[in-house]
C-alpha cells in the first residue's frame, strides 16, 4: 500500500483549523489512512490502495474536512476552458494511444506543495499508472509552452533534447541508457520502432512519455501556471489520474482549465475536452444500505452520512437518494462502494458488533483427521515431527538424491534458487534437516506428514496435491529392519490391507537394501537404507534408513469409512 508523508502544519492549513496530532492519529485510520509514524511534525501514513485521491495531503485534507464536518458535501471545482489544443498524431496509436491534458493557473507552489506534487505523481505512477505503463504524468511550466501541442511518435534517432535535470541534449537512446528514469522505465518502450513524444508549436520537447520530461518546461517552486499531460493505454484510466491530480491542485487554490484534445482518424470520439472535472451520479437505496450495513438508519441520517463522505445528495422519494460523486473518486464501481463510504462516515469505531445467529455444525476434513492419526502413530514410534517448506530446490529434490531428473513443478520467478521448485517428495527435506543437525545428539528420528505436488495431466491445474508421510532414522547404527518394522506397523495401524513388498532399485538407496510397497499394483511406498553417496551429498555422517509413503489410497479408504 502506498505510503505518503504529510506535514502537520500544511495539513492544518488546508483544513483551515488546528487539529491536534493526537486527534489526527486517532481519526486518520478511520478514513483508510493508517498512521505509521509521527516524527516531529511529519506524519507517515499508509493509504489504502483504492483511494489514489488521498495520495497527497490535499486529498487527505479534503476527506478529513468531511469527516470532521468542517466542510461536507460535494467539493465544487470551477473549470474554465483553455485555448490549448493537443493534436494527436496517428503514429502514437500502436505505442501509447491516449493523451489528456489540463492547465492549472495561479498555483502557489510552496516548498511543501511542491513536494506533495512530486509525491502524488510518484504514487499515481505506481498504482493507477501500473509503474507508468498505464499512466505517465508530465507536469510542465505552462508559461514557456507554446501551444498548440502535438502528441506524436518519432523514430528514436530523430529524438534529441535536454532531459529533466540534464545539462545537454541527449538522444533517445542515450536517455534510455544513461538516465535513471530511462533505465527504470525503458522496458515499456521495448520493441517499438517509434517513441511517443510531446512537442509544442516551436518543436520544443515537453516530454518523452513514459520516460522523462524535458528540462525546458521544468517546474520549480516559483512556477505560477502548470500544464499537465497524461498519456497511457486507456482513456478511462488517464482521465481518472488527471482528475485526481487536477482536483488536488485545485484544493490549493489552483484554477483548472480544460484542454481540447483532437484525435486523428480511427479514434472515437475524435475531439474531447479533458479535465472538465464533471461529477458522475449514482443512486443509493436506503434499504440496500441498511441491509448491507445493518445500521438501520433513516433517510435523514443517510443524507448526512453521504455529505460527510463528500457527496452531494438529492432525495428521491422515501427510500432513495441520488448521489453526485466527485470526479476524483475513481474507486466507485458499484453501489456497494458507496455503502462502504457511508459506513466509514458513520465511523467503524461507533458500530456495535452483532453475532450472527447462523447455526451450523463444524467439522474437519477427513484429511486433517487422518493426518492427525498418522502423526500420532509416528510420534508413538518415537519420531520427532518436522515442518519443512513446500518450496525447495532442484539440487535438493533431484541431484543430491542421486537422481538425474524428476518431473516436478518449477517456478517461473523464484527469488532464490534455494526455493525455486515445489517439493515432489518429502525425503529430500528430511535429509536436508538431518544435514543441518550433525552436531545434535543421536539417534535422530524424524518424520514429516504433508502435501507434495505432482504433475497430473487430468487435473485442471495440471498438478495435484498428494498427501505423504516420510521418516528417517539416523544413528551410529541403523538397519533396514528398523525402518521396515515401522512401515509394517504403520500400515497395519492404518488398516491398509492387501499390500505386498518387493525388492527395488533406486539410486537414493543402497542396492539390495531398498524395497517398494505395492498396493493394487501401484507403488505407494519406498523404504531402505540411504546410499552413502547421498549421505555424502548431504554431509550426513551417520547411516540413515528411511521411508516415504503415499497416503492417497489409505486416505481414500479412510474417508469412505468415516
Amino acid at each position: 500500500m502506498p505510503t505518503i508523508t504529510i506535514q502537520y502544519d500544511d495539513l492544518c492549513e488546508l483544513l483551515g483549523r488546528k487539529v491536534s496530532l493526537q486527534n489526527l492519529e486517532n481519526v486518520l485510520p478511520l478514513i483508510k489512512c493508517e498512521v505509521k509514524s509521527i516524527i516531529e511534525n511529519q506524519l507517515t501514513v499508509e493509504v489504502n490502495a483504492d483511494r489514489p485521491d488521498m495520495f497527497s495531503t490535499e486529498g487527505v485534507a479534503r476527506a478529513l474536512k468531511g469527516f470532521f464536518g468542517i466542510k461536507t458535501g460535494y467539493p465544487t471545482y470551477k473549470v474554465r476552458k483553455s485555448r490549448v489544443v493537443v493534436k494527436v498524431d496517428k503514429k502514437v496509436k500502436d505505442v501509447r494511444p491516449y493523451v489528456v491534458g489540463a492547465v492549472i493557473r495561479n498555483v502557489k507552489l510552496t516548498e511543501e506543495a511542491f513536494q506533495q506534487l512530486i509525491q502524488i505523481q510518484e504514487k499515481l505512477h505506481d498504482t493507477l499508472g501500473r509503474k507508468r505503463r498505464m499512466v505517465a504524468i508530465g507536469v510542465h511550466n505552462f508559461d514557456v509552452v507554446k501551444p498548440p501541442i502535438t502528441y506524436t511518435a518519432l523514430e528514436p534517432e530523430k529524438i534529441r533534447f535536454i532531459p529533466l535535470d540534464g545539462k545537454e541534449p541527449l538522444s533517445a537512446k542515450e536517455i534510455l541508457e544513461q538516465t535513471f528514469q530511462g533505465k527504470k522505465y525503458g522496458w515499456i518502450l521495448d520493441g517499438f520502432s517509434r517513441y511517443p513524444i510531446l512537442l509544442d508549436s516551436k518543436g520544443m520537447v515537453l516530454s518523452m512519455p513514459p520516460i522523462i520530461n524535458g528540462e525546458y518546461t521544468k517546474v520549480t517552486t516559483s512556477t505560477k501556471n502548470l500544464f499537465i499531460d497524461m498519456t497511457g493505454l486507456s482513456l478511462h484510466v488517464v482521465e481518472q489520474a488527471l482528475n485526481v491530480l487536477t482536483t488536488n491542485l485545485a484544493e490549493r487554490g489552483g484554477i483548472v482549465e480544460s484542454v481540447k484534445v483532437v484525435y486523428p482518424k480511427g479514434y472515437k470520439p475524435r475531439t474531447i475536452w479533458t479535465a472538465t472535472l464533471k461529477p458522475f451520479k449514482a443512486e443509493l437505496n436506503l434499504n440496500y444500505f441498511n441491509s448491507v450495513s445493518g445500521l438501520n438508519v433513516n433517510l435523514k441520517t443517510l443524507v448526512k452520512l453521504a455529505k460527510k463522505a463528500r457527496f452531494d445528495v438529492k432525495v428521491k422519494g422515501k427510500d432513495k437518494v441520488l448521489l453526485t460523486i466527485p470526479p476524483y473518486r475513481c474507486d466507485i464501481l458499484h453501489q456497494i462502494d458507496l455503502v462502504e463510504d457511508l459506513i466509514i462516515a458513520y465511523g467503524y469505531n461507533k458500530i456495535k458488533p452483532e453475532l450472527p445467529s447462523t447455526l451450523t455444525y463444524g467439522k474437519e476434513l477427513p484429511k486433517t483427521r487422518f493426518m492427525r492419526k498418522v502423526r500420532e502413530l509416528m510420534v508413538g514410534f518415537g519420531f520427532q515431527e518436522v515442518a519443512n517448506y513446500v518450496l525447495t530446490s532442484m539440487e535438493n529434490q533431484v541431484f543430491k538424491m542421486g537422481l538425474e531428473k524428476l518431473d516436478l513443478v518449477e517456478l517461473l520467478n523464484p527469488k532464490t534458487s534455494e526455493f525455486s521448485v515445489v517439493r515432489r517428495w518429502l525425503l529430500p527435506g528430511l535429509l536436508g534437516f538431518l544435514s543441518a543437525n550433525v552436531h545434535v545428539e543421536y539417534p535422530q528420528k524424524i518424520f514429516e506428514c504433508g502435501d507434495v505436488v505432482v504433475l497430473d495431466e487430468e487435473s485442471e491445474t495440471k498438478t495435484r496435491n498428494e498427501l505423504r508421510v516420510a521418516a528417517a532414522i539416523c544413528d551410529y547404527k541403523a538397519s533396514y529392519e528398523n525402518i521396515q518394522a515401522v512401515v509394517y506397523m504403520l500400515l497395519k495401524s492404518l488398516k491398509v490391507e492387501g499390500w505386498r513388498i518387493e525388492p527395488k532399485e533406486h539410486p537414493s538407496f543402497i542396492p539390495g537394501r531398498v524395497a517398494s510397497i505395492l498396493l493394487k499394483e501401484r507403488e505407494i511406498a519406498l523404504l531402505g537404507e540411504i546410499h552413502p553417496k547421498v549421505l555424502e551429498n548431504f554431509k550426513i555422517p551417520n547411516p540413515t534408513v528411511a521411508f516415504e509413503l503415499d497416503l492417497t489410497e489409505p486416505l481414500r479408504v479412510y474417508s469412505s469409512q468415516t
Partner: protein
Amino acid sequence: MEKVGYEILKFIKERNMETTVKDICETLGLDHSTVMRNVLSLEQKGFIQTFELKEASYRLTDEGKTYALEGLPERKVVETVLMLGGEATLEDIVKHSNLPEKLVNIAFGWIVKKGWGQILREDETVKVKVLSKPEEEKDEKLLRRILFEEEVNTKNLSQEELNIINELKRRRLVLEKVFVDRIIRLTETGLAQLEKEEEIIPKFEIEEITALTSELIVSGRWRQVKFKEYDVTATPPVVYPGKKHFYLEFLDELKRILVSMGFEEADGPYVELELWNFDVLFQPQDHPAREIHDSYQIKNPRYGVLKDKKLVEKVKKTHEKGWVTGSRGWGYRWNTEIAKRLVMRSQTTAVSARFLSEHKKPPIKMFCVSRVFRPDVLDAKHAMEFYHCEGIVVDKNLTFKHLLGMLSEIAKALGIGRVEFKPGYFPFTEPSVEAFVYHPKIGWMEAAGAGMFRPEVTRPLGVKYPVLAWGIGVDRLAMVKLGVDDIRELHSKRLDFLRER
C-alpha cells in the same frame, strides 16, 4: 559351602532347628532335586540329620461309604437275629437281612471276634444266638468320622486308630494314599557352621547382581542374590520423546477452535489457476498483486484448463463491464489466457471461491488453514510461504455488523481479547475492514482482514446471499502466541530447538 546349602541351614534354624524337605521347597521356592542334592551333601558333612517321614491319608471306598451310612454287615446280622427272637439260622438271616450269604458268613466271623454272639452248629445247620444289642464299636465310629471329614491323615490318628484303619484297609473299606517326606534336623555341628558362615557369607559369598534377569525371577533364585546398589541421583542419559511439531500443533488447535465455532474445513491445491486465485475474486488482470513480484508463476506447467466455461464467461463479462452485478466493471478486455495461467496460490480466498462455486445454499460456515506463497526473500520477518487462516459465513440477512461480531467472537475464542476495527481495502470485499488487536508487548497489531464479498464476486459464482469473509495471517499470530521472534523458527531446521519446544 554353596549358597543354597547355607540358605537351607539358615532356614532350618529359623524353623526351630527342624523342618521338612517339602517346607524348604515351598517356602524357599526351590525345586525338589536342588534341595535333595544339598540336603545329601549337608548330611554327609554332619551339619544335619535326616529322618524319613511317611505320612498317609485315608478316604472311604464306595463300600465303606455304604457301611458308614447303613452299618457294618455284622451289625445288620445281629439286628436281624434279635428281630427273629435272639436265635436264627443262616437261611433265615439271609432271607430277612437282604444280605448275600457270603457276606453273612463273613459277618459271623466278626460277630464272634467282637463278642457280640455265639455260633451254634447243630448237624448241618448253623445258628446264631445273640443276647442283646451291642454298643457301637471303635471301627464304626472311625468309619463315620472319615465319612464326615472325607479324608483323615495319619498325623491326626492315634496308634489305636491306626490299627483300626489297617483293619478297615484290609476289609477294603478305606483307601490309603502314602506321602514320603524327610525330616531334617540341624545338628550342633551344623549350627556352629552356620554361625561361622553367617559372619563371612554376606560379605564375600552372596552373589551380587547388576541386572535382574528373567531366569532369576522364574527360578526364584533372586532370593539368594543381592542387587548391586545404584547411584540413583546420578545424571541419566538424555532421552527425547517423539513429538509433534509445535507450530503444526498450534494450527491443529486453531482448527479445533474453528470447528467448535461451527466452521467446516475446506482446502484446495497449492498450484492454482489464476482464475480462482484472482479473476473470480474480481482482481483485474493488471492488478499489481498479479505481477511477477507479487505472485509466483509456474514455469512448468505454465497453463491449466478452464473447465467451467459458463463461469468463465460470467467472470469475463463482470470484469469488462460489470455484467448483471450492477457494477461498472474494470473496463478492459479480459484475457482468457491470463486466467489459465498457473500460480502458487497466493491467498486462501481461492479456496473460499472454489468452495462457494460448489456450495451456494445457506447456512454455510467454512474455514481453511493452509499455505500460501508470495515471492519474498526468507529472513527474520519475511517468508516466501506462510499459513493463512480464512473463513466465510453465508446466510440470509447477514450484515456488516455481523461481520464485526464474528471477528470479535473469533478473537475471543483465540484468546486475544480487545479488537478495534478500521476500514481496509481488499479487491474482493466491500465493505472491508481490518481488525487490530492489542498486545501488551507489541501494542496494536493488525490481526485480520475481512469484508463482505463484492457482488462482482458472488454473482458469477451463483451465490445469492451475503458472504462474510475473514482472513488471519496465522504466522504472525503464532509468533505472538508462541513467543517466536524470527518467522523462520516456525519451520526451524534445528532439531535441538524442536526437541525442547
